[in-house]
């Protein structure tokens, strides 16, 4: 099977050409706090990208189990940023319109930044629960903790430079 070269090149463009130098040592997987839940592992994910296996690289839970903790990135002996590979795949998945609860959460997050310039956690949670009602129990439990302590922000703050932020989000997005 010949891989999807265009997909591979797009990952390299977004995550850095050094990804090509991966020696599959597995330091990234060994460092990952959610490795035990990942299939494929982060090491395997990089291999899939280099093989141009777009289908398997994009359709998995691994992308969404990454906590962005960057331990893989500070440890990689080849100077690759495995987390940047995950980000590149999320970016490609979004452009291709692949939806999941996790992808929706990131979209709601980015939309708030674009519309307001800041995050309003309450509104973000509300929006997310509409697509993922299973999260309601956790949100209620946390709400009960935060509410009496005055830690729920009721207002949506909008910054003055919203047009500028919108430009950053829309125009810097590499198509």
């Amino acid at each position, binding site marked *: 099977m010949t891989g999807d070269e265009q997909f591979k090149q797009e990952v390299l463009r977004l995550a850095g050409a050094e990804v090509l130098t991966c020696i599959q040592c597995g330091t990234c997987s060994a460092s990952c706090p959610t490795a035990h839940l990942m299939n494929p592992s982060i090491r395997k994910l990089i291999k899939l990208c280099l093989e141009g296996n777009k289908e398997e690289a994009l359709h998995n839970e691994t992308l969404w*189990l990454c906590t962005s903790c960057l331990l893989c990135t500070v440890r990689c002996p080849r100077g690759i940023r495995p987390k940047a590979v995950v980000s590149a795949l999320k970016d490609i998945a979004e452009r291709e319109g692949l939806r999941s609860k996790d992808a929706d959460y990131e979209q709601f997050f*980015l939309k708030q*930044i674009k519309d307001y310039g800041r995050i309003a956690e309450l509104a973000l949670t509300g929006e997310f629960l509409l697509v993922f009602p299973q999260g309601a129990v956790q949100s209620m439990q946390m709400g009960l903790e935060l509410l009496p302590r005055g830690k*729920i922000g009721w207002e949506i703050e909008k910054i003055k430079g919203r047009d500028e932020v919108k430009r950053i989000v829309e125009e810097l997005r590499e198509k």
Partner: protein
Amino acid sequence: MKLAYYPGCVSKSTGKEMDTSTRAVCRALEIELEELDDWNCCGATHVSNDLVATGLAARNMAQTDLPIMTACSICYSNLRAAAMRLEEPETLERVNAVLDKKYSSAKIHHALDVILEALAEDDERIVVPLKELKVAPYYGCLLTRPTGQYSPEFPVVLEELIKNLQAEPVDFRLKTLCCGGPIFMPQEKAADDIAFRILKEAKKAGAEVIVTVCPLCHLMLDAKQKILEKKMGEKIEIPVLYVTQLVGIALGLGPDELGLEMNSVSPMAMMEKVYEKNSE
């Protein structure tokens, strides 16, 4: 000393006590803070496009000529990562093309290093030394990553500060393990498991309090602690303080000034012990 202060989005909600205590401690240490003008969200861990994330950070950094301080490790990591990327001329050019105020350079501080620099070891402003208090130094991930001022493998800066306050840092093996916070909404179980591992390890290490440098770590370990106890069927009962709250207590600041009533697990018993030790 005068710094530009970047409070970050959670300063208005789940991280209010981080903001309150940061301002109070800086006031006490005569560090003047000027809130960054019209600041925007740093993107946290949810903006996958590198250039967009860099642009969001660059807009914040272009608002001031002063060094910038934040108490949030996520904001701190994002600003630092962006400053590194903006050293590439091509990135700088592309980002500046969409900015109103152009970015040239920036110096980024976490509140932790500002405090450490301002507070000497035998500083006479430490009026309530935290004698014999066993503190778990919890770094989480993003204070030390990407690589910069502190070792990402084995940082010791929190231990240093804890000792300066005359408290005792415990040997905390999971001090740099991610708290799971960034995925807690869509991936609840994965996040809960990691957070509870950290809490259990702190308990095993004999900690009387856990100190954090990030509002998301704080949310996972403090606001979620009772929920996790119930879910996992095991008691933890360890207060979790922001580093600014811990320092504030040692500086003799009151609970209101430090937002201590906003913590889920009450630190009052721990504080009583500290006060008792000081009256001996």
